[in-house]
């Protein structure tokens, strides 16, 4: 049995080689750049540069985008997964299919399409003025960035949440109704708490990537609004200051790890409950 298990472990080696080559070694390289200045001497100033007013502003803007995107995704996802739970098998499958469909399209292509839709003489304003509402100018604002990230990351919120909610037994919901709970109470006391593990995976998959999606900010923000990712990109590509770029990356990474540790800890708590639960 032990031998068999050991053999199975060998199957992981291709991935181990891959992750050492393309994750671990690059991380070490970045860390080395971050801790050295241009002359090769040890310094913390690259990492601490995150608190420079310009960089800090970008970091805060990134947090706003990520937080807003996560919140909007949650608000869109819950009604959807609750409706999905009620649908029959066919309806559920086609809804999930439509949800996943945009994930198969190229990311840049989707952003360029959104740019066309949202631009001041784009499709959105054409439709609005035809309807007599008049045009609105949201291109190159945080609103269009927000639309871009929500569009991109919504499926990553819906799918884990859908898994969690559809795993809740109908009998449990009926039992709550039977004991006098109205629909809203059933959601607050039963469905929401039982869906927290799914919600946590959704948050980790939406919050972190939306915080750093600098290409979205580039294309839909017109280069005027900068996320932390944009600053890092500029350090590497325009200023050619790899030390500074690496330093800011490490600072961001530390920040992400801290917020993840917070979420994951909560997630594990509810997981532990699950374990005794099932």
């Amino acid at each position, binding site marked *: 049995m032990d031998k068999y298990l050991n053999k199975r472990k060998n199957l992981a080696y291709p991935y181990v080689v891959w992750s050492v080559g393309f994750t671990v070694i690059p991380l070490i390289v970045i860390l080395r750049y971050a801790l050295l200045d241009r002359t090769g001497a040890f310094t913390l100033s690259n990492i601490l540069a995150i608190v420079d007013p310009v960089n800090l502003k970008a970091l805060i803007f990134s947090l706003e985008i990520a937080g807003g995107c996560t919140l909007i995704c949650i608000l869109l996802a819950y009604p959807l997964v609750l409706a999905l739970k009620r649908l029959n098998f066919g309806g559920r499958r086609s809804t999930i299919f439509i949800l996943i469909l945009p994930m198969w399209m190229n990311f840049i292509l989707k952003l360029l399409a959104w740019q066309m839709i949202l631009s001041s003489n784009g499709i959105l304003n054409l439709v609005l003025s035809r309807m007599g509402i008049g045009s609105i100018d949201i291109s190159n604002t945080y609103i269009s960035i927000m639309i871009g990230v929500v569009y991109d990351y919504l499926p990553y919120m819906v799918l884990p949440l859908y898994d969690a909610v559809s795993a809740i037994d109908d009998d449990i919901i009926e*039992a709550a109704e039977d004991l006098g709970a*109205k629909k809203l109470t059933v959601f607050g006391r039963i469905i929401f708490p*039982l869906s927290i593990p799914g919600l946590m995976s959704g948050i980790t998959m939406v919050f972190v990537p939306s915080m750093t999606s600098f290409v979205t900010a580039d294309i839909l923000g017109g280069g005027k609004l900068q996320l932390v990712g944009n600053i890092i990109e500029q350090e590497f590509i325009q200023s050619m200051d790899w030390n500074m770029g690496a330093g800011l990356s490490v600072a961001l990474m530390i920040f992400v790890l801290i917020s993840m540790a917070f979420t994951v800890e909560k997630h594990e708590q509810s997981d532990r409950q699950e374990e005794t639960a*099932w």
Partner: protein
Amino acid sequence: MGNIILELRGISKSFDGKKILDDLTLDIEKNEFVTLLGPSGCGKSTLLRIIGGFVKPDSGQVFFEGQDITLLPPEKRQVHTVFQKYSLFPHMNVSDNIAFGLKLKKKPKEYINEKVRYALHLVNMDGYGDRMTTSLSGGQQQRIAIARAIVNEPKMLLLDEPLGALDLKLRHEMQRELMRIKHEVGITFVYVTHDQEEALTMSDRIVVMNQGIIQQMGTSKSIYDEPQNAFVADFIGDSNIINGIMLKDRLVLIQGIEVECVDEGFDANEPVDVVIRPEDLIIGTKGSGFTNGIVTNLIYKGAYYDISVTAGTHEWSVQSNVPAAVNSEVSLSIDPENIQIMRKPKSSDEEVIDKLG
């Protein structure tokens, strides 16, 4: 009539064009233990879900204490359900599960604590309040589910095959527990099961259902001793059911043999179903009974022997305290009083027995 708590009037329900309940009418009395008994798909669970408010009937009305509650949602009914799969809330401990309904009603904290303690005591689970429900065994979980329903003082408790997932010994224990709890709290129980032994043990009244209609209603004894049709006879306990012809009053022809019985009032030469309980057949030496046959099978069942006797084309099922050797020739005899004669079913609804066997 003042004693009636629930009236079901002409309830019909179809799913996907299949008729589940057909114009069913039933009264349930206050403090009664009524069991809805029938094979799976007979409509008993749907009827229970209609009483609980989870399913709306296509036609017909439900009255609770004289008030029409047909369209009232489940959370507003004074009726609580105990589900087969227990359906406890997995993210709450035992106390929070039991207190769920009381908390929704915003009862004071001391009152809730007192009630939870009482409910735990009632179901013999003192001291389990802080346990997570999912660390409990099936039997314990079902006790908590019962406590969770009863603590709200419903006027009627609906139980949907609550013991179906438990093993035999535990099931017997829980049957006694349920009867004790019913006795202590004094509320109406409507119990759904497909287990005839469970129904016979616990019920004040049994409602035997099949194909969406009530086949027979009555006490355990009346249903067992005097089944009104071949379906009920076959479903309640074991039975030999065989075609016969009523020659005249008190004389029936079975497989070409004239046998004395006590039934009267049939047409001359009317085809009938003859029902004989296996424990009523007596095995004797060849030639001493109404028919002779060969023992084809013998199974020891603990309290009795299950013996198959083939006579002509029919295989009789006999239960006896004494064994009979396989392949030996024996006779079968019966007390005329133990023969039940039934009219052949007129509607297709009652013909299930033909399909069964």
